[in-house]
């Protein structure tokens, strides 16, 4: 390990091995293309190599600070890997080594396999680069690079229908734009564009704008509202491997990384301050709204993708509390989420591969056919629902704790919202799990039999599920060991939750969810429809139908609740789109037309153009000289 660390310890080498090497591997997998075994082997090797570097970087526990000269014009990249960023590089490498294999295996016999893996590796390079950069500008470069690969991966599956890819590009692009703005403001008020040079800025005056922009940019990357709406849409068309890798794991890591940096290092946010409350509100809203949407989904991938958004809400809620316990909770929840969410997406992808669909209405009772999958699903489902003993439970308890302890008057409200979220999560997973695996066996129409062959697909799922249990038992390793560098907490936060009352309330909520589920099953007769009574409840029905139509989707600029506001928004949007769709292209087109007409092949006009140029040059010179 130490030898590897020595190798990495200069900036050049660090960049070369953590950014350059994945790029080289990217070309290798691209070259491997449709040769499935070769591609998977290369992926595995690359994952392991990357993991070795990640481990060396993290477990050596030493900082690397260096400046890499790219060109001679101040475009140097300042590298700083402290313990925190090394941790993230390590976590990313670990997650990637598992998910990468799954992706490669999942892509077997797909036409675009090579290109997809190419993008995936480039993304890894970009993410590693973003973690290492000290200068915010260079980080932004890598961050934008990720946007490009994201676009490419979304586009890859269906070139004809690029709507969702464009939506993702637009939303992520806006988030990145905000972040760019935030970086500029922050660098301006902090007097430095390096993260190490910025610390403890106050959130006031221009700082408010800087903080808000940076946070929105960072959290928007991880899928927080209001930049979330591309994820469910992408779930419909993008490859499942993409969902497991990006919204499931990598983007969460990147977004939360920067979020924590901003909250704890660049800006000093007191618990109970307006900034803290704003972030918590964002988290709570994301959490409840997204899970409410998840509740009514009948498609596995879509349901999971709404959960991917909702879980970010928990993280943001914990992060926003600005308390050590909250930040530890957020980070731990992020780690858990990477584990179980990617596992769940992988399961969805696996089932899609076997059954040809992920629509829960078309199959049920698959426990006998796919026992391992079902067990893994149960474990992950328990984790995400927060069943005591699994890893999700511990991180959620930390976040509940943080929500209650935050020094603001709304703390009970936040706690209540978090509980509502937990309730709905449990309900939706009960619905999904029981709908898919229990009851009478039924297969989609065109599928004759189902099995669960495919070791390389199953293995990552099993590993991830096992990790759910492992981190449940040894949660203090992560909470008190790994994340201590970020939280700065003195007391131990790991182990069994301190407050028995909170645990009891959580368990009650879970039981309530179970009761609700059973009630729903009784009412409709099918587990899959267990949530329908919520869906079609008097007031909720209208809200849901509006939400289904995309009324709450910020992408559509429509706020369903306030009609007037929505009207104004629509008008603004129309105005904006008029400017973009009509006015600017119109002006460009008119100018082009004019220029085009002047290019009519007449020699006289050519010569007149020359004389005009002479006259213009003369006028410019005269105006300067006289």
């Amino acid at each position, binding site marked *: 390990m130490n030898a590897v660390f020595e190798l990495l310890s200069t900036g050049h080498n660090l960049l070369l091995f953590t950014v350059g090497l994945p790029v080289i591997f990217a070309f290798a997998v691209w070259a491997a293309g449709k040769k499935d075994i070769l591609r998977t082997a290369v992926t595995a090797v690359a994952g392991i190599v990357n993991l070795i570097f990640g481990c060396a970087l993290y477990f050596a526990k030493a900082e690397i600070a260096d400046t890499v000269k790219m060109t001679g014009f101040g475009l140097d990249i300042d590298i700083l890997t402290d313990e925190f960023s090394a941790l993230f590089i390590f976590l990313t490498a670990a997650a990637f080594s598992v998910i990468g294999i799954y992706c490669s295996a999942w892509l077997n016999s797909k036409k675009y396999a090579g290109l997809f893996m190419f993008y995936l590796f480039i993304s890894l390079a970009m993410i590693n680069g973003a973690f290492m950069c000290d200068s915010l500008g260079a980080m932004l470069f890598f961050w934008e690079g990720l946007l490009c690969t994201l676009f490419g991966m979304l586009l890859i599956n269906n070139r004809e229908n690029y709507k969702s890819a464009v939506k993702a590009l637009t939303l992520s692009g806006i988030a990145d734009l905000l972040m760019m703005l935030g970086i500029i403001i922050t660098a301006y008020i902090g007097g430095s564009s390096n993260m190490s040079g910025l610390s403890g800025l106050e959130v006031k005056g221009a700082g408010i704008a800087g903080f808000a922009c940076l946070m929105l940019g960072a959290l928007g990357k991880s899928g927080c509202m209001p930049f979330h709406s591309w994820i469910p849409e992408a779930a419909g068309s993008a490859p499942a491997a993409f969902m497991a890798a990006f919204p499931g794991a990598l983007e969460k890591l990147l977004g939360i990384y920067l979020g924590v940096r901003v909250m704890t290092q660049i800006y000093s946010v007191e618990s109970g301050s307006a900034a803290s409350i704003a972030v918590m509100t964002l988290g709570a809203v994301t959490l409840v709204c997204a899970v409410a949407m998840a509740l009514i989904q009948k498609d596995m991938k879509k349901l999971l993708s709404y959960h991917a958004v909702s879980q970010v809400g928990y993280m943001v809620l914990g992060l926003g509390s600005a308390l050590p316990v909250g930040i530890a909770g957020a980070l731990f929840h992020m780690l858990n989420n990477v584990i179980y969410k990617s596992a769940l997406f992988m399961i969805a992808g696996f089932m899609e591969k076997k059954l040809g669909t992920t629509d829960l209405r078309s199959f049920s009772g698959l426990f006998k056919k796919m026992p391992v999958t079902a067990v893994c699903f149960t474990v992950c489902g328990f984790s995400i629902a927060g069943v005591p003993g699994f890893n999700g439970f511990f991180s959620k308890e930390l976040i509940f704790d943080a929500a209650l302890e935050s020094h603001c008057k709304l703390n009970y409200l936040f706690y209540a919202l978090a509980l509502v979220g937990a309730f709905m999560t449990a309900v939706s997973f009960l619905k999904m799990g029981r709908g898919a695996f229990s009851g009478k066996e039924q297969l989609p129409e065109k599928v004759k039999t189902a099995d669960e062959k495919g070791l390389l697909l199953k293995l990552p799922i099993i590993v991830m599920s096992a990790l759910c249990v492992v981190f449940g038992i040894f949660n203090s390793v992560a909470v008190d060991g790994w994340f201590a560098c970020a939280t700065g907490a003195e007391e131990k936060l790991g182990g069994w939750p301190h407050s028995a009352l909170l645990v009891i309330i959580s368990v009650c909520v879970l039981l309530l969810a179970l009761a609700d589920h059973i009630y729903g099953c009784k009412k409709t007769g099918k587990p899959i429809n267990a949530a329908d009574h919520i869906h079609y409840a008097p007031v909720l029905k209208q809200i849901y139908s509006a939400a289904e139509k995309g009324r709450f989707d910020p992408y559509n600029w429509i706020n369903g609740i306030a009609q007037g506001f929505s009207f104004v928004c629509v008008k603004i949007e129309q105005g904006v789109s008029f400017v973009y769709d009509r006015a600017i292209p119109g002006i460009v087109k008119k100018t082009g037309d004019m220029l085009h007409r002047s290019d*009519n092949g007449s*020699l006289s006009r050519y010569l007149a153009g020359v004389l005009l140029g002479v006259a213009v040059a003369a006028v410019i010179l005269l105006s300067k000289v006289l």
Partner: protein
Amino acid sequence: MNMEFAFLLAGVLLILAGCFCLIRTYHLLKIIIGMELSMKAVTLLFVIAGRINGNMELSQAFIITIIVIEVVITLVASGVALDLYKKYGNLDVRNLRNLRG
């Protein structure tokens, strides 16, 4: 109003006349005549330049080179014009509108 200024004036006016010819005429050969006229004006400018700076011998060297090049350009231009005549049957510059955006 000295002699040098008169020369400059005449030179500029001749260049203008040449440009005018280039732009206004429809006849390919006349376009070439316009070019020649402009070149005459330039030669005139070099003559007066040589007179003003006293380095008339260098000026002569320049002028001779310019004249040689001018002949070659005229040759090429008339060659192209004649080829165009063979293609179109007349020497109208308005034929030359095939190339356009």
